[in-house]
Each structure stands twice: as structure tokens, then as C-alpha cells.
């Protein structure tokens, strides 16, 4: 009996959680106007790809898709590289000022990024990076979260392993590249998944820095689109599917790594 109540509650919760996304998917295959008929259609009467065709052929959403993919990919590679370098050094190498510098980095975790956005925009303007991919990429290339995550993992790597490599005459960079990085693969995958998804979904900074349409990322592009096409429910649902689906699939494939990242972030080290 208890078991039935428990699973009923779980199923109702799951239905409420997933319903908005199912409706989004279903409405995206409807013909224009079908989503606002009465009585309502929950599934399309004759499924069509018209909305997607219009998005990619007439409204050029493919370009925004490409922008999102480029920005998210470069940020992912950069933040994994720089984060792993710094995370390793903070965990395993001794150098003057280490604790103080790491403490300074941790302060960044409680500072809302909006505080720096106005000067950052002016700074980017000086560097002629407004309305370029680099303007969107550079501020996320190294993150405190990434350094912190990798450092926590590196602390668990036995020191003997590094000493053995040192005795064999390996340089510090060789140790980082050939000994440490292969060991850290799972945590690197975690950070990569995390960074790709958060960059893909990021909205406020791309909205500010990518003023011209030719560089808009998907969230910025569809936020603009909904202004002009607010009546076109089915079209907007298709554009939402295009924005949500890639990271959703990525999450389902890589959820092991993503969830590990959240757990690691929540457990104090």
C-alpha cells in the first residue's frame, strides 16, 4: 500500500516535471494556429516539419546554432585546460602565496558576476571585442568553479605517484601532461560537460556583448524572435526545441559526469 502511494506521488511529480517539455515538442510539430485551437490539441493531427523549415530556411536560426556551438566548444576546451593546470598546481605543487591566492579565488564565488559586467563591457569595447565571439568567450575561459573542482580531485591523487615520476627525471610539465591528466579524465569530463551546458544556456552576457544579429547565440536569438513572433506559438516551440534538445541529449548521455560535478561541488573539502 505504502509502495503504491509512494510511486503514485513520484509519477505525478514526474508528469508535472516533464509535461512542459513534452508539450513544447508536440506543439513544434503542429501547423500554424493548431496549438491555440479549442478544444486543445495535445498531439498534432498531422505532424509537420514546417516550423523547423521556416526557422532554418527563412529565419536563419542555423547561424545562431553555429554561434552557440562555437562559443560553447571553445569555452569548454579552454576552461578544462586552464582549470586543470591551475587546479593541479594549487593541489599538488608548493609555492609561495599558494593559500592566499586560493583564498582570493574563493571570494569570487560569492560575488555576483553582474557587478563586473558594466566595466567589463567598457573594457571589451577598448579591446574591440564587442560583438565578436571572443568577447563572449574570454570571460568564461577560466572559472573559479573549474579550478576548485579539479583541485578537490587532485588532492586525492597520491603524492608517491608524482614523486616516482620526479625520480625518473620527468619535468613538472611532463608530469602534469602524462601522469596527472590521464588520471583526472573523469573529473575533466565532468567539468567539460558542465561548462558546455552552462555556456550553451548562458543568456545575460551574450545578450550584452553580442549586439549584432550575425553573432547571436541561440538563447539571445530566440529571445529576440519571441518579440516579433509572439503569436506564432508553434514556431516559437520549434525554436525552443532547437535550443533545449542538444544539451538535453548531451545530459542524458553524460549525466553520470554532470551529477558527479554537482555532488563534488556540494561536499565540503
Amino acid at each position, binding site marked *: 500500500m505504502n509502495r503504491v502511494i509512494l510511486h503514485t506521488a*513520484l509519477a505525478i511529480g514526474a508528469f508535472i516535471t516533464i*509535461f512542459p517539455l513534452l508539450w513544447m515538442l508536440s506543439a513544434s510539430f503542429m501547423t500554424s494556429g493548431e496549438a491555440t485551437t479549442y478544444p486543445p490539441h495535445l498531439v498534432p493531427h498531422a505532424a509537420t516539419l514546417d516550423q523547423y523549415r521556416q526557422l532554418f530556411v527563412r529565419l536563419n536560426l542555423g547561424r545562431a546554432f553555429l554561434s552557440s556551438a562555437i562559443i560553447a566548444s571553445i569555452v569548454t576546451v579552454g576552461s578544462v585546460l586552464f582549470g586543470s593546470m591551475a587546479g593541479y598546481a594549487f593541489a599538488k605543487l608548493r609555492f609561495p602565496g599558494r593559500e592566499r591566492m586560493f583564498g582570493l579565488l574563493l571570494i569570487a564565488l560569492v560575488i555576483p558576476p553582474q557587478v563586473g559586467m558594466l566595466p567589463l563591457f567598457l573594457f571589451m569595447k577598448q579591446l574591440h571585442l564587442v560583438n565578436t565571439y571572443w568577447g563572449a568567450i574570454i570571460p568564461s575561459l577560466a572559472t573559479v568553479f573549474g579550478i576548485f573542482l579539479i583541485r578537490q580531485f587532485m588532492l586525492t591523487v597520491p603524492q608517491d605517484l608524482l614523486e616516482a615520476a620526479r625520480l625518473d627525471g620527468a619535468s613538472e610539465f611532463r608530469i602534469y601532461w602524462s601522469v596527472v591528466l590521464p588520471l583526472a579524465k573523469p573529473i575533466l569530463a565532468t567539468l567539460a560537460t558542465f561548462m558546455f551546458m552552462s555556456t550553451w544556456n548562458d543568456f545575460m552576457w551574450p545578450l550584452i556583448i553580442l549586439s549584432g544579429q550575425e553573432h547571436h547565440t541561440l538563447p539571445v536569438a530566440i529571445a529576440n524572435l*519571441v518579440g516579433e513572433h509572439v503569436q506564432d506559438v508553434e514556431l516559437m516551440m520549434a525554436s525552443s526545441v532547437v535550443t533545449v534538445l542538444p544539451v538535453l541529449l548531451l545530459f542524458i548521455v553524460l549525466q553520470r559526469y554532470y551529477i558527479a560535478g554537482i555532488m563534488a561541488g556540494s561536499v565540503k573539502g
Partner: protein
Amino acid sequence: MRAETRAAFLLIAPAMVLILFFFFAPVVAGFLLSLTDFDLYTIGDAHNLRVVGLRNYADLLTSGIFWTAIGNTLYFALVGGPLTVITSLAAALLVNAKLTRWKAFFRTVYFVPVVTSLVAVSIVFKYLYHPRFGILNLTLSAIGIEGPDWLGDPRWAMFSIILLAVWRGFGYTMLIFIAGLQQIPEELYEAARIDGAGPLRQFRHVTLPMLGPTFLFVGIVTAIGQLQIFGEPYVMTRGGPLNKTLTAVMLMYEQGFRWWRMGYAASVAFVLFLIIGAATLVQLRLQKGRA
């Protein structure tokens, strides 16, 4: 210099330089900016820049729109925060219950909204909330309730956005609660059972106290995130109706990047920073007081 030290500096250099120049320097510059009258004329000619001290902050105190934005932001965090925590704790207890089967499946389903694009789901909810065609009101009318104009009614608009934020955010805090629940030793429950405690008393006297540190972490993370709310109202309501969903970050964005009143906007950002700092400190204090 020792080889180890030199290597360490080279390894941390790229990350430290990037974070210094593109995070810390702008934050400090943001504070300095808030002490000036930087506006459209300054962008044209830097000679128009004047240092005005704390005048922007003084202006904020007497500005109606600023207090509206702060009030809305606090309302969002004070209602949305507890709702998110309660929903995610309930979800975590259900998913983590001993009798539950397909744990991983339910955990994944509940987590899915977290990875969706905020802008995309804001658009989806905008249509679900439609007063006539939205599924929400159609469902309500099927059981005889006439639903409000969720986003168009000043009394409901912010609450509607809160519901979206809870839907999108509870999966994340649920995971943290599950991690916390799994740390509680089984012997504590056994001891409670031997003392004759039922499920409710076990929850009150074992689960809740043992989750103390988790509550602290969840509370701080949720508050920091929610006080920065921007995307949902930007997409769904543009701050309306009657400025009921205008938030602090939206005010900063509008003033700074639409009207280029950057000095004023920077002072809004700093007040928000202070509020976030205060929210973090208050929760740390409360936790210490209880322990």
C-alpha cells in the same frame, strides 16, 4: 627559483591572469564606476566623466523604481527560495525512500529542467500561462476553476515566474539533499525505532537535524542564485505589468545597457552585492546559533 615553484607559477598563470583581468578588475572598476556620473555623454567623450562620490547611492534611496525592484527581488527570493527548498526536499525524500524502485529514472526526470535553457523554457511557460489558450487555465477550467491572467495580472505575475523558477531549479537542490540524506548513518534510524519513534518523529529528530549543513549550503546557493534573477522576467514580462516583475538585475541592465547610465547602474549592482553578502551572512549566523 626552485623548479617546482617556477612550474607552479607557469601552470596557474593563464587562469590567474584571465580571472584577474576579466573578473576581479571589473568588479573593482564597477565599484569605482558607481562613484561617477558615467553616462551616454561620457561614452562620447571621456572628459565628461565626473566623480560624484556617493550621490548615485543617495539617488537610489529616494528613487521609487529602485525600491520597487529591490522589493520584487526580495519577494522572489523569500517566496521562491523556501518553495524550492521544500519541493526539492520532498522530491529527495521520495526518490531516496527505501521502497522506491527506478530511483535513477526518477532522479534523472526531476533533474531534466535544470539543464534546459532558461530562455527557451521561459518562452514555453509564457504560452502555458496564456489566459485563454494556455494548458494551465484549460486544465483549471476543466475542474471548474477560472484561472487568472497569470503573467498579465499584477497580483499574479511574479508568482507565476516563481513557479517557473521552482520547476526549473528544484532538481539541482534535490540532488544535494539526496547526497545529504545518504550521509546519515542508518544506526541513527534504528536507535530511533527502538525508542519507539514513528516515521514522522524520525524525520523531525533524525533527518532534519542531520541535514543541517545541507540546509545551509542549499540556502546560500539558492539565495545567491535567486537574487540575481534576470532572464525569466526579461523574456516573459519585460518587468511588467506595472513594474511588478522588474528585478534588481533588470533595473541594472535597463539603466546601464539601454540608457547607458552606467554610473547609476553600477550602484544598483553594488547594492545587490551587499544584499547577497548579507543573505549569506545571516544564514551562516542562523546555522551557528542552532548548532
